[in-house]
Every structure is written in structure tokens, then in C-alpha cells.
């Protein structure tokens, strides 16, 4: 086995994952720290003759992606919270038009322009409620530089499979930090990965094509790219519509389409998490993003001293992996949730699933959580 190593940033690995997963259209607008993804995507895609464009603003960037997605491209953009705010209307548009788009979000300290180069995991609540009407889009959280590669592929697969915008959530400390990565380990990740495309409609079929067709409420409509073949007309709209894509405000079918938008994600989504359980432990750490690494350091130290502790690492923050959280939290007395924001945004999002256990939030602003703080709470819980 080769021992060759490369020094790579999270941004570089996100770009590699995206290219390997088949992304062939990228539009972005410069913003720190997401510019690192933007630059990596532009140089890589343009080098292979695919489309990568610097848009005149974030509104144009994501709108270009939606247009390209309708033409059949696998699309991606990258931004940070100020850009995400501008993209919000278009993300709703992508959701309603069932257009796969990956939004790589590099978090930084907010609100407003905030501080572009300070750590933060503060966009969690915003993302949970980003679609007007109370719908959920998948949010996949990256917990390490190395995992940036395979989680990007998974996020793109989800976007394609479910025909929905997906947020790939990272933060400044992952995308702008570099580490040594084993070339063979990365190759293994690539071999293990599966690459999924959206379900396609046979353009030669005589069946009438409907852009948003489904028989069962949770079925994903088959996709036909605008401009393929001559038999079928493809119409897309962000307004309330029937299965064909015709504007319709109150028809039974239009309301069924709304119900379908919720059901298709809820019923087809597969939760992504890792569980590291230690028998006899009464303390469980629920962690995600870079705080997961702080937790891992703390656990290593605790276990050396024979302190028992388990860890649930969550990758799919939304939809909330309700089953595993409610099942696990009945078996532990103390739940520790570290996150880099002042209120414990994800802890609040899952609190209703935790019945008896005591919840300890560990929070910080503008800086990563020191493993020492988590270790102290593990010790206190005994």
C-alpha cells in the first residue's frame, strides 16, 4: 500500500468529491471563506471543459444553477451566510421546481456581514427553516477535512435522487484548514462511493410527460431535460402548480403536489450518522461539524482514564434523524451537545426527542470548542 500523502484543505476535497460525483456546472460569487471552494471548482471544471462561472452576485449564481439543472446538469454553488441570505428565494424556487442543486455553505461568524474569518456553526436554525411554508431540505454536515470528500458525494447523490436543493454544511475551520491526507485512503473512499443520478423519463416514450408527475405521494417525478428529444414539452414553475407544471392555485392536484414536496423527502431520506457506543456508559455526546473533532479528542482522553462515554456523530442534521436520537437518548442519563454558537441551535432542534436524560450544552462564539471543556463535562457527569 502506498504511503504517499498530500496536503489538502477541506475546500479542495469538496471540489474533488463534487467533480467525481459528476458536477458539471458551477456558478459562484466570491465570499470568505467559501471562496476557497469557488476557486477550486473554477480551476478544476474549466480545466476539463465544463461550465464554471463567476456570477455577478449570489442571486444570479444560484439562479444560473437552477437553469442549468433544468437542462440536465449536475449543479453546485458555494457561499457563506450573507450570500445564503440572498440565495434564499432561489433555494425555495429550486425546492418547488424540484431542481437538484448543491449549495456548499462555509459558515463564518454572523449575523449580517459579521466576521468573515471567525469560526461559527451558527447557520443551523436558519437552515432548518429556510423554506417558506415550513418544508425541510436536507442539510449534510461535514465533520472533518478528510470526510469532506465522501460527504460531498453523498450530498450530491441525495440532491439528485430526491430532486431537491441540498445544503452541504461546513465551516471556515474545515474548508480553509489543510491537513495531510493519505492518497490510498482517498482512493479507497472513491472506490467505495456510489454515484446516483436523478430518475429519468424516457424521451422516446409516447406517454404524456408531466414535469412533476407521481402516482404515490412520495414518488420522485421522472426528469426530462428541457431540449431533449422533440416529443415532449417541459414546463417548470415556482408558482403553485399541478403535476404537469400548469399554474393552479387551489385544485386538489396542486395541493397534492405541495403535500408531495414534503412527503418525498420525509419518506425517502436515509439518515446519515456514526455511532460509537461503549457498553456501560451513561453519558452520550451528540456531535457534528468541527465540534465533533473536539468531542473525539475529549473522548480519547476520558477513555484513557477509564471514564465511559459514547458518541453519536450526526452527518444529516436535517431532516432530523429522529429515530436514532429518540431511541438512544432513553438509554443515557446525560447528553452532551457541543456546538460553536451561543444558544445551542441543534440541541434546541432535537430537545423534544429527549425525554428523561439531562442535556448539557457546550457553546462558544468565534472560536472552536476546546476538548478540555467537553472532557470536564464527561467527568462531571459521572
Amino acid at each position, binding site marked *: 500500500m502506498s504511503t504517499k500523502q498530500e496536503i489538502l484543505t477541506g475546500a479542495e476535497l469538496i471540489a474533488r468529491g463534487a467533480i467525481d460525483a459528476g458536477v458539471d456546472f458551477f456558478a459562484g*460569487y466570491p465570499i470568505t471563506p467559501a*471562496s476557497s471552494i469557488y476557486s477550486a471548482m473554477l480551476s478544476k471544471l474549466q480545466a476539463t471543459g465544463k461550465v464554471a462561472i463567476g456570477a455577478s*452576485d449570489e442571486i444570479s449564481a444560484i439562479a444560473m444553477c437552477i437553469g442549468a439543472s433544468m437542462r440536465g446538469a449536475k449543479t453546485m454553488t458555494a457561499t457563506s451566510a450573507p450570500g445564503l441570505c440572498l440565495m434564499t428565494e432561489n433555494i425555495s424556487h429550486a425546492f418547488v421546481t424540484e431542481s437538484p442543486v448543491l449549495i456548499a455553505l462555509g459558515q463564518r461568524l454572523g449575523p449580517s456581514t459579521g466576521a468573515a474569518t471567525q469560526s461559527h456553526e451558527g447557520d443551523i436554525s436558519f437552515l432548518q427553516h429556510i423554506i417558506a411554508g415550513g418544508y425541510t431540505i436536507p442539510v449534510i454536515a461535514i465533520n472533518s477535512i478528510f470526510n469532506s470528500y465522501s460527504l460531498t458525494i453523498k450530498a450530491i447523490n441525495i440532491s439528485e435522487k430526491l430532486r431537491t436543493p441540498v445544503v452541504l454544511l461546513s465551516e471556515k475551520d474545515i474548508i480553509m484548514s489543510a491537513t495531510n491526507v493519505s492518497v490510498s485512503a482517498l482512493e479507497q473512499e472513491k472506490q467505495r462511493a456510489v454515484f446516483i443520478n436523478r430518475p429519468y423519463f424516457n424521451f422516446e416514450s409516447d406517454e404524456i410527460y408531466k414535469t412533476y408527475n407521481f402516482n404515490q405521494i412520495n414518488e420522485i417525478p421522472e426528469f426530462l431535460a428541457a431540449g431533449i428529444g422533440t416529443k415532449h414539452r417541459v414546463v417548470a414553475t415556482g408558482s403553485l402548480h399541478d403535476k404537469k407544471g400548469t399554474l393552479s392555485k387551489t385544485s386538489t392536484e396542486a395541493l397534492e403536489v405541495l403535500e408531495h414536496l414534503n412527503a418525498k423527502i420525509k419518506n425517502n431520506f436515509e439518515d446519515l450518522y456514526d455511532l460509537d457506543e461503549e457498553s456501560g456508559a451513561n453519558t452520550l455526546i451528540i456531535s457534528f461539524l468541527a465540534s465533533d473533532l473536539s468531542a473525539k479528542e475529549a473522548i480519547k482522553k476520558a477513555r484513557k482514564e477509564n471514564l465511559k462515554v459514547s458518541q453519536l456523530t450526526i452527518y444529516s442534521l436535517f431532516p432530523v434523524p429522529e429515530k436514532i436520537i429518540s431511541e438512544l437518548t432513553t438509554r443515557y442519563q446525560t447528553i452532551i451537545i457541543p456546538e460553536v454558537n451561543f444558544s445551542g441551535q441543534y440541541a434546541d432542534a432535537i430537545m423534544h426527542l429527549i425525554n428523561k436524560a439531562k442535556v448539557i450544552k457546550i457553546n462558544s462564539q468565534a472560536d472552536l470548542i476546546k476538548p478540555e471543556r467537553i472532557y470536564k463535562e464527561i467527568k462531571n457527569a459521572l
Partner: protein
Amino acid sequence: MTTVTLDAKDFKSEVHPDWCPGCGDFGVLNCLQRALAELGILQHQVAVISGIGCSSNLPGFINTYGMHTLHGRSLPNAQGFKLAHNDMHVIAVGGDGDGYGIGVGHLVHALRRNIDMSYLVMNNSIYGLTTGQTSPTSGEGMKTKSTPFGNPEAPLNPLTLALGSGASFVARAFSGNPKQAIEIYKAAIQHKGFALVDTFSPCVTFNKVNTAQFYRDNTYDLNAEGHDPSNLMKAMEVASRDTYGDRIATGIFYQSQRPCYEESEKDTLSTPIVDHILGISPERAAELIANFK
């Protein structure tokens, strides 16, 4: 009445600019401070309003009212500010990405609306704060972080855009020619209407093409050559011909006396909104407010 004599250092704030040493924006800041001083405008009579970018940090470094708003959104903020306080000099500032990229929609409408204010664009043909991506005024073929194989897009011409959008004052300066820049800024601030001044303000760190030396070698003063700024067609011709390439015009391209927005809306705007007298007596107003308590 007492007369106050000001000089540029009266417009210096306590914050030292965070720009790279040698940045063209130092020249713009200095010229703006000197222009205000020479016009005898007091610090509290000026609001400097910016977007986001290196140059948009300017309101922090000038001793006037200042607003550092969102990326591309300086003009809507500045126009709102001006309409509520039309007795003040409002100067919007920002970079080419901020004004000609993300904020260009606002610019077009500000030009035709013709509110009495100035807009100084520090044009360096690059995104500096995000470390060097192609901007709307980067030249064709230019290699940047976002165009590693050369920029395939034609650059935007801010001057013809402005002239075609109903501008009443269009000028171009160069931070390396302060004598001319100060005179242009003074004229822009005194102009009754929306005044756009595009200023070459070279980025020493990320743009190795549009350097100070490049502009020293390739610019000429069109007013010194007898250009008539009241002639729109002539302005269009010069702006269109002498913007890119090796003969670049600077100076006042065009100035017209068409009524500004405030003059067309005299009834409501002759008094600043904050000074408007309500159509009811103070006693009656107090009674009404009491009802809501």
C-alpha cells in the same frame, strides 16, 4: 457668522486604513478629504455610505457620518438617507465589484432617478478583499483566481452605461493624479443631481495589469484637450473609444443641468422629512399617543 477653515486632516478619523501599503484607495480618501475641505463643507454636513469590499471600508477612515452597508447595497441605503436628510451631502463609495457587479441594478436606477448625491467608485478591475477574482471591469483574457485560463468576458464600460442610463454627471479620475481628482470630486459634490465618478484606484496586491504605472502611461486629460462636457454624443463617443486600450480619457465627460429628483418632488422634499411639521397640534398629538398607551 464665523467662518471655519478646514483642511484635509480635519476629515481624518481615528481609525487608520487597513488597506495594503500602496493601495490606490489611500489616494482617493486623501483627495476626497481635501475636496471637502476646499469646498468648506463641515464634517457633520456629509454622509459617506458604502457597500462591502476593501474600498467600502472608507467610511471608517473619514471623519463624517458613515454607513457601511451590505455588499452592492450602498446606493439604496444612500438614496434613502438623502431623501430623509436632503440638507446633507451624501457620498456613496465602493469598489467596482460592489457597484458594477452585484450592485449594478441599483446603479442604473440611481442614475436615471438623479437624486442629488455623488457616487465614487474605486475601480481596480479585481476583487481584492476575496483575494483576486475577476471583476466586471477586468480585461478580456486577464488571468485571475476565477479565470485561470483567461477572462472570456468583455469588460463593462461604466461610463457609457451611465451616459445611456440618464446620468447628469459622469467623470473619471485616477488616484495617482490627485490634482485632477480633487477638482473632479469638488465638481461632483457641487453638482445638483447624481454624480458618478469612476476612479482608477490600482490594487497593488492582486492586479498586476492595471497598475499605477499603466495608468500614468496611458491616461490623458480630455478637458485639457478642449472637450465640451455639455455634449452628450461627444461624451458617449470618447467614453466608448477611450476607456480600454492604451489611450484612456480622464476628466469630466458629461454634465447636464436637468432637474434632480428633489426638485421634481419639491412639495414633499423641500424640507427634510425629519423636520416636517405634523398637520396637528402638539397637544392633539400627545392625546393620540396617550390613547395607545
